[in-house]
């Protein structure tokens, strides 16, 4: 009962922080997907390059997110900008890796047939490679987005706002209701987004 009363009293703040959280993650993910897919496509041209880029993206992801955000403060200060940069860097690996495996996993015969028939490199990319790699790319986007929503909470630490604010404040004030609401909202967004993206993925699978 206590919990519901708390929610009713603060719903406007909760809504505002949720929207803020969504905007940060959305902006970060749009940039991240554009960058990750482009890099993923480009590294298919060279096995050495692919290894280097994938290890770099891997290092980014293994870095503790708190440390990553802190490292960005001297460069970009605090606020939404470093948060978005951090999220982009953090979510690159699943995107790049899935685009890369999706494209390199296509049977060479299909590509050879397309070349032999006279399709240009661009047409092969957009009409053959990307459609065929789509399930893998979409799986990468799902993973990256869910990760981004979760890590987005940490961004509150460098003043980006979002639902993380509730969690951090809850911790410092030992107010477990705030922590709980922040966590539940983030989980809810994650689950709904994942389901939504999953539905898109399945629609295009057919």
């Amino acid at each position, binding site marked *: 009962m206590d919990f519901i009363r708390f929610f009713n009293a603060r719903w406007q703040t909760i809504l505002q922080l949720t929207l803020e959280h969504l905007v940060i993650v959305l902006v970060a993910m749009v940039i991240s997907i554009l960058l990750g897919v482009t890099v993923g496509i480009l590294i298919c041209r060279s096995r050495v390059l692919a290894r280097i880029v994938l290890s770099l993206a891997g290092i980014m992801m293994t870095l503790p997110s708190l440390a990553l955000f802190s490292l960005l403060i001297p460069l970009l200060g605090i606020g939404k900008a470093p948060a978005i940069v951090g999220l982009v860097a953090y979510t690159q690996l699943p995107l790049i890796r899935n685009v890369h495996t999706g494209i390199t996993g296509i049977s060479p015969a*299909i590509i050879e*047939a397309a070349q032999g*028939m*006279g399709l*240009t490199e661009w047409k092969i990319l957009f009409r053959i490679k990307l459609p065929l790699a789509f399930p893998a790319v979409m799986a990468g986007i799902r993973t990256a987005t869910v990760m981004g929503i979760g890590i987005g909470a940490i961004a509150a630490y460098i003043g980006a706002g979002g639902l993380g604010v509730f969690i951090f404040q809850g911790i410092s004030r030992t107010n477990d209701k705030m922590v709980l609401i922040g966590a539940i909202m983030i989980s809810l967004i994650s689950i709904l987004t994942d389901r939504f993206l999953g539905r898109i993925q399945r629609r295009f699978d057919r």
Partner: protein
Amino acid sequence: MIRFDCVSKRYPLEATAAVDDLSLHVRPGEICMLVGPSGCGKTTTMKMINKLITPSAGTITIEGRDSQALDTIALRLNIGYIIQEIGLFPHMTVAENIATVPVELGWKPARIAARIDELLDLVDLDPAIYRQKKPRELSGGQKQRVGVARALAADPRIMLMDEPFGALDPITRAKMQDEFLKIQEKLRKTIVFVTHDIEEAMKMGDRIAVLKAGRMVQLGTPMEILAHPADPFVSELIGGRQALKMLNLIFCDRLMRQVAVADRALGAEAALRLAAEPGAARMVLSSGGVRERFYVDGQSLELAGGDLAAAARPITTTMRPRASAQDALSEMFRTGDRFLFVEDDSRQIQGVIELEDLFRQVKGCEHAGQA
């Protein structure tokens, strides 16, 4: 049509050339087979035609123009390309796969739709059933049919085929070969066909180029190659029993002699006189100008004492004109007769083949191949 002049392909870090100083002229309307063991350079040779591989030396002329000067994409759009793995696009329907090149060439949708149906009919797939299917719903043979249809889509004058039937089971494979030959009889494409299977080369090829370690060791018709293999390598590739294999390349229409006709109305007398003439040992009986399915020969006439009706024997074994001499020989062994009759598609007896004809033909081919 396609001319190789001193073409070589060398890869860096490799001691021997993949293709070494190859000169070859593929004539319009012929199937030119490139045959040899793996690594002999046959696929490399083929891929240099549509510029998937760039030659290190020499020139390739396609329809009179140096291929290096031609626009690569335009060139490829005008060459049908079929590979063993087929490479159908799995996310597209059969119709979309076939439409690939016509779409690139900017055909109108109505024309493309009509062409898809026409091609599916040609490769013996019912358009109503197969148009909307995805490649994963097709059997291996059906996939390759779609592959053939896709390659023929924009009616290219040149087709490149890299072991197109290599992955199929033997029965489907033989069927596809036969059907493809039938299609080719109508379309008369200029075809470069790569295979490692000499039997396939013999069956499909108008001419065969035998390649070994990047060099062309022999070029000739199947008969020439069977009759006179250029070196031990070619002999080994053919694998013996040349004369029997020749029988596969001779067809009944070439082998048969026109059969003599004995009219019942003219009686045994006339028939006996006819039988005495050279090449008329066996005669088909006819009445009122219609050929019957009975025959007489000198022996049967004699035994019957000049009674034409009593001498008549039924014709039981016949071959079609497109059957091979090997089929004919097999039939003779089966029946124990030293002759058989050839009937055309309307079941009219046209000719007769004697066992001696087979011997003579094979001997003759060996001589003809000498040139």
